[in-house]
């Protein structure tokens, strides 16, 4: 298990949109390193052919406990009134949510 570099920690923090002060970054680097040393061991385990359990109820074999194919009928329910929807919105302009300018095309 490779220990985390500072650069890696910074990259992950950027991906997660988490601002970390430089002392936090340092602490994070060493703490994550320790945790990964401990838990990263699973990377080395051979699990060839073992199905992944994506849900805590057995989804891979239909049994009496499995409720698969849960779908919703296409029937509209009333929307939240705008004022209720945006009640906790930090910054509004009328009924629109305001954010700092998005660089045009910044979206993937």
């Amino acid at each position, binding site marked *: 298990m490779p220990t985390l570099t500072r650069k890696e920690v910074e990259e992950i923090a950027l991906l997660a*949109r988490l601002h970390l002060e430089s002392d936090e970054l340092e602490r*994070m680097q060493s703490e994550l390193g*320790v*945790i990964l040393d401990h838990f990263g061991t699973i990377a080395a385990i051979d699990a060839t052919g073992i199905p992944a*359990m994506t*849900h805590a*109820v057995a989804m891979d074999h239909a049994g009496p*406990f499995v409720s698969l194919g849960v779908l919703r009928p296409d029937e509209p329910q009333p929307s939240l009134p705008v004022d209720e*929807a945006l009640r*906790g919105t930090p910054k509004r302009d009328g009924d629109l949510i305001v954010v700092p300018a998005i660089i045009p095309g910044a979206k993937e």
Partner: protein
Amino acid sequence: MSEWWSVVETARRIADGEVTAFRVVEDMLVRITRVDRDLGAYLEIDGDGARTAANEIDRKRKAGEKLGPLAGVPIALKDNLVTKGIVTTAGSKILAGWVPPYEGTAVEKLRAAGAVILGKTNLDEFGMGSSTERSAFKKTKNPWDSSRVPGGSSGGSAAAVAAGLCAASLGTDTGGSIRQPAAFSGVVGIKPTYGRVSRWGVVAFASSLDQVGPLARTVGDAALILQTICGHDPRDATSLDVPVPDFSAALAAGARGLRVGLPKEYFAGELEEHVRAALDRTIAALRDQGAEIVEVSLPHTHLALPAYYIVAPAEASSNLARYDGIRYGLRVEAPDLLTQYSKTRGAGFGPEVKRRIMLGTYALRSGYYDAYYKKAQQIRTLIKRDFDAAFESCDVLLTPTTPTTAFRFGAKATPLDMYLADVFTLSCNLAGLPGMSVPCGLTPEGLPVGAQLLGKPLDEVTLLRAGAAIEAAVGLGDRRPGGFA
């Protein structure tokens, strides 16, 4: 002293007209005001809402209308359960002051049964922790020893029940967050089979592990609350569409003929002396009552902790992406979007949450997914198979809930130390099984010890049956935390 009445007794006395729901609630609110300043179990108390609900129960009773099974019973809710009109924070600064416009299913079901919601209890931020020390808002003390933690993350819910600040409460359990504080605080806690209780209105930590469950002072109370909150919910696609059995009916069956499995891996490691002694007494009591004790093996147990600490943070990193300061919650203004996101989240999340987001983000990165997240899920399969095999030779598993009794504030110096405290409770969540912690005595220092019962999927009935037998034999009886009687 209505404050110490059980759920069952409270409901009966109100239904019989011996006392009004209003009186019960009012007494409870007075007690909370007196006690909780020091204990710190509650984050939010909804006195007005509780009084209104109690009055409505009293009106119904007078009018001869049908009362629900929990009519007038004062209940507390972990603050990661969404309550319409009542501030819901999940113990995080990033959600401080958030008033939900909707109600979670479990809460809805409680209200429909007549329960009176007193307020919201403290927790480790977003359920991430085992001591409630990671709450952004306050410390909650262990009612049995104020220098110790109540456990976590449902520490507020456990402490409130233990100290008689509600008849029962709801918590959530992602890796032991109901059972571990139940053990530390000397109460009963149940994590139902994954899918038994709807997650609609549960602030998500790790979606494939989270489950809501009751904390109560007796197994019977826990069964009644569980009865109320279980059931299929079309709003949760992972909710199981299966019948809910009569949980209370199983309580009196006794331990005779029950095959109780002891997974050797849970008894092999470092167990605190008094925990081991309490478990030994519990095992002996069950044997005396006619249970068959068998040793079983769960060989992949050592992989549960690493698998859990990949799966849970990975899902959490995704579930917590919505806290971006745009639609609700905290926002730290900045001139550009990227900075605003980062500063908001940097300021809004506590250190433990940040660690888990970082860990989860790390594990899900492209090129790492197979080695971590997927591998952890494969390990879940191995762990699940261990349980399937073990349940071929027994009906229920018995283990200590925790390796130690409640630890002191600040005792877990490093994040890893804290994670290791969950070692016995995680497997249950990974495998989706029902689990329960039931008090099985006090140590000579007067700290409660919890016995953990793990069952087959959907077999809460057997857990309750075994739990009731343990309660009767080695439970706490009328012993209450000093200073709270």
